[in-house]
């Protein structure tokens, strides 16, 4: 087991905030770890053979071939965010490489912590080589005290090679004044599987992201799942896109969105470019208090033989469902929480138990504070 991570100057509250994003500083249930606090890289190591966790800079020095993976699926010219990160002379972030045939039973944790009111930038590259299986939990949090000006700009490029699998579970725990701009994309080769999960149950000023998966290999699979709650003052512009370019490629984009007064824009786009591809997009929204859920599901097919579907629904908690549970003895609050809990309960097939439990734990925290 890797040794515990020594974190300088972190209060008990902020340690708890990190723990809520799935970061285990004791390393009991993690095989590797990357920890960046603001712009300082505190920790980067992995105890699993065949898997490397390196800082971006160290990785670029170690492997010359990595330059062929940087800024390949995300363009540095894409927008102001990518331009800002690309212009950095001292790039931060991590590179995780699961070499051919390797796999990790215990997940690797990547923690990006924002302790000051400034921009944190990272550039991450994640590669699962042929036949490798890689599970990552990415916990992103800020200190409870961080005020205006705090922002996170994150570029992530994923490469899922032939017969490989990556699961990437990102849990956010920012605060009311933080703005977050992830920019990520993935390429999935033959029989590759990419699972991307996003959980945000806590306040944030703004999140804007639209990760894209390009399914280039035969029978490749991408599944995006997002579980989010938007509190008053939060503006969450979320989406995911899958481009199906090979026979047998399939994608599933699932969102569960709840507003308690904030705004959620839930975008989704599946593009079936060739025959023999399948895709399904599903967004379910619940408005608990006046806020806004704006679902924009897009499906685009341009050939005979691509099968795409979408399902979107925005509504309120049904009175008859609440009273059904009340007639079994639950009071109104318990009945409501039980139904919301069920609504958010997206079981992600292929996700290791430990990570599913982490997602469930994030929902537990939200439930305990009364959703």
């Amino acid at each position, binding site marked *: 087991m890797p040794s515990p991570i020594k974190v300088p100057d972190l209060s008990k509250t902020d340690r708890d905030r990190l723990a809520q994003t799935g970061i285990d500083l004791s390393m009991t249930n993690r095989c590797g770890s990357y920890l960046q606090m603001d712009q300082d890289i505190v920790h980067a190591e992995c105890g699993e053979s065949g898997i490397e966790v390196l800082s971006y800079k160290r990785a670029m020095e170690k492997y010359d071939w990595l330059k062929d993976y940087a800024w390949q699926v995300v363009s540095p010219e894409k927008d102001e965010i990518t331009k800002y990160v690309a212009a950095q002379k001292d790039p931060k972030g991590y590179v995780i490489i699961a070499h051919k045939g390797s796999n990790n039973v215990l997940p690797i944790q990547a923690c990006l912590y924002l302790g000051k009111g400034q921009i944190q930038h990272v550039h991450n590259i994640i590669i699962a080589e042929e036949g490798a299986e890689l599970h990552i939990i990415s916990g992103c949090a800020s200190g409870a005290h961080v005020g205006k000006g705090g922002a996170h700009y994150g570029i992530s490029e994923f490469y899922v090679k032939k017969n490989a699998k990556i699961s990437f579970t990102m849990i956010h725990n920012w605060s009311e004044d933080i703005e977050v701009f992830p920019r990520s994309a993935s390429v999935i080769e033959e029989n590759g599987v990419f699972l991307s999960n996003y959980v945000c149950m806590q306040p944030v000023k703004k999140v804007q992201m639209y990760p894209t998966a390009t399914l280039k290999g035969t029978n490749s699979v991408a599944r995006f799942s997002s579980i989010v709650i938007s509190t008053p003052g939060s503006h969450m512009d979320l989406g995911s896109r899958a481009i199906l370019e090979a026979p047998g490629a399939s994608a599933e984009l699932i969102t569960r969105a709840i507003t308690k007064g904030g705004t959620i824009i839930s975008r989704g786009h599946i593009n079936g470019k060739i025959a023999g591809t399948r895709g399904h997009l599903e967004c*379910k929204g619940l408005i608990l208090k006046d806020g806004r859920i704006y679902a924009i599901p897009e499906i685009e097919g341009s050939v005979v033989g691509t099968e795409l579907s979408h399902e979107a629904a925005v509504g309120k908690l*049904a*009175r*008859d*469902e609440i*009273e*059904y*549970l*009340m*007639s*079994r*003895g*639950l*009071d*109104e609050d*318990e*009945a409501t929480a*039980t*139904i919301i*809990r*069920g*609504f*958010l*309960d*997206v079981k992600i097939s292929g996700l290791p138990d430990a990570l599913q439990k982490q997602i469930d734990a994030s929902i537990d925290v939200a439930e305990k504070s009364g959703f």
Partner: protein
Amino acid sequence: MLQIKNLHVKVGDKEVLHDINLTIAEGETHVLLGPNGSGKTTLLMTIMGFSNYTITEGKILFKGEDVTSMHAHERAQRGIGMMFQRPPTISGLKLGKMLTAISHTKDENIPELAKSVHMDKFLERDINKGFSGGEIKRSEVLQLMIQNPDFVMLDEPESGVDLENISLIGTTIGSLLEKDKHLIKRRKSGLVITHTGYILDYIDADKGHVMCDGQIRCHGNPREILKDIKQRGYRECLECRHP
């Protein structure tokens, strides 16, 4: 156990139950008969405390306590339970999770109980989603087994159920109502809506009532009333104005 006095109920702007009087003693099971739309389900939903059903006059007493203005969960906690004819589907909520939520801190062996009504394979399914008629009834019975109410209301427990399942559901309801106990030791009471009367083979009802146009029109031996209705239909009941 249950006493209903001079009960008037509105749904929306319309009064649908008029001057209902009904007393069910401890250990007794009563049957409620009547044509479709006569108000039988409305009466059960009102006793359970659903908010769509507004009591404009009258009282409901349960174990001597006035429950007229109580919420559904308060009535459930006092021992009133109901088997719904068409319960809602709750997306994402697994039957097993619901049973755990109902059981609170009690130590029931949920998988074992589920197995006894052939619902063990449904514990990980969304509640009522895609359930057949028989599966819905078995799920309802299972929830009642965990809730273990003193007064059980059953809204058409045999509708949509095949013959094999009727026997399983009937026997289980029979034990919920303590029909396996000697009359003197029986503490559970029930009120059952039935059209076919099949359920009577399992629960030996004590009294029958006929409801028409939101009123209880007559009372009597449940099997005799049922036999009469089967032979003559409800025409005479509808015409009858003097219960």
